[in-house]
């Protein structure tokens, strides 16, 4: 059962920010609700004022900008992202991650902004956004700012967002010739957080990896350099080593730290193999 609260529907982002400030510290933003309502039911938080931002115009848009970047409104649902037909080249890892996030029903409510704002170390959209160098734009009463996704996650379920800051959109820059892929290890097919998840992108000067559920935040592992024209498969061992060095997994209800280390080794290899396949095996 949810604790009692007052529901407000914001018509503009300014209204949402006002409501947040007026009702501080008892106000929470509601997007998809798939994390907030669970937390409230579990007694983790009990905001007395819920501010629904889904009616704010522009927060649900998904569009390709004139420079080829993908703009995803904070309140675009995960299924809306999956159904978006004009995904620019090189962004497949984002689509792949979205397709295994939670369940179909939850993907009709869960939002892209919410997945990163909730900042679970295992969040599925974190690793692909990391390897693609995404940026997060947020507004607060003091104005608008944009942060690199690599600066966004600060700890378990914590982000760099300030008290009255609300994400408005995420921008994925053009990926020019890059190829990307994603793998998620779960205990079951269906609704499960990742035991380990991996995103990989190759192109524009190197191999980039994103790892989830193996540290307090989704990790970015950069493997630049390498010979020009070198097949990505040849980078496999170095990449696995770099990842194993970077991670700090824990034992939890889903897996032991040891299992996670083993899975990182396997999954990074497997994801790099997917990259090879996507490049036709030739490069």
């Amino acid at each position: 059962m949810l604790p009692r609260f007052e529901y407000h529907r914001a018509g503009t982002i300014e209204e949402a920010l006002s409501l947040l400030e007026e009702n501080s510290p008892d106000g929470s933003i509601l997007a998809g609700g798939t994390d907030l309502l669970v937390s409230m039911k579990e007694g983790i938080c009990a905001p007395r004022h819920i501010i629904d931002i889904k009616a704010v115009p522009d927060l649900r848009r998904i569009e390709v900008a004139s420079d080829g970047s993908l703009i995803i409104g904070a309140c675009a649902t995960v299924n809306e992202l999956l159904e978006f037909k004009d995904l620019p080249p090189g962004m497949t890892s984002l689509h792949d991650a979205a397709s295994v996030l939670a369940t179909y029903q939850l993907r009709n409510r869960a939002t892209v902004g919410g997945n990163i704002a909730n900042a679970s170390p295992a969040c599925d959209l974190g690793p692909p956004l990391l390897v693609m160098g995404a940026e997060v734009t947020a507004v607060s009463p003091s104005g608008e700012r944009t942060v690199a996704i690599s600066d966004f996650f600060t700890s378990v379920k914590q982000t760099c967002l300030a008290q009255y800051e609300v994400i408005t959109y995420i921008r994925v820059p053009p990926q020019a010739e890059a190829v990307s892929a994603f793998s998620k290890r779960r205990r079951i097919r269906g609704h499960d957080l990742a035991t380990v998840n991996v995103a990989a992108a190759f192109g524009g000067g190197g191999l980039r990896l994103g790892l989830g559920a193996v540290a307090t935040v989704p990790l970015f592992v950069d493997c630049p350099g390498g010979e020009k024209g070198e097949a990505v498969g040849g980078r496999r061992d170095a990449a696995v080593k770099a990842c194993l060095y970077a991670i700090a997994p824990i034992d939890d209800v889903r897996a032991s730290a040891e299992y996670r280390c083993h899975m990182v080794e396997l999954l990074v290899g497997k994801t790099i193999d997917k990259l090879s396949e996507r490049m036709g095996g030739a490069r």
Partner: protein
Amino acid sequence: MRDINITLNGDPVTVRVEDHWTLLRAIREGMGLTGTKEGCGNGECGACTVILDGRPVNSCMVLAVEAEGREVRTIEGESDGENLSALQQAFIDEGAIQCGFCTPGMVMSARALLMRNPDPSEEEVTEAICGNLCRCTGYKPIVSAILKAARREKKNA
């Protein structure tokens, strides 16, 4: 309390709800429609699945007030009076119902699938019910039922 206006199984209705009610509670207690079940209350089991503006959702994860002005389809809307839908009949024919608790949610997920994809593959059916847990059947008869219903509905279309 406040009134919300929704279209429920095709008919306009007004329901009195509290801000903190889920859509699930509004359906069961506000509207007396107990076909939709509460399994986990956390968006994990799918027993509470309803179709909101054409999309299947866990009604335990939607606030009642968020349904204002929207279309809600519940299991009660699946049959036409006493006449079971092809989907419901197929569930019976294939032995896809044992205790029956997951069934309304399963049928709603299946109905939503057939609305967006009238000719699904077995893989697509399995994917569509990934959010609906069943402790009894092992899922196989449920998948068979949905495929059978798809064939029947296609034939009758």
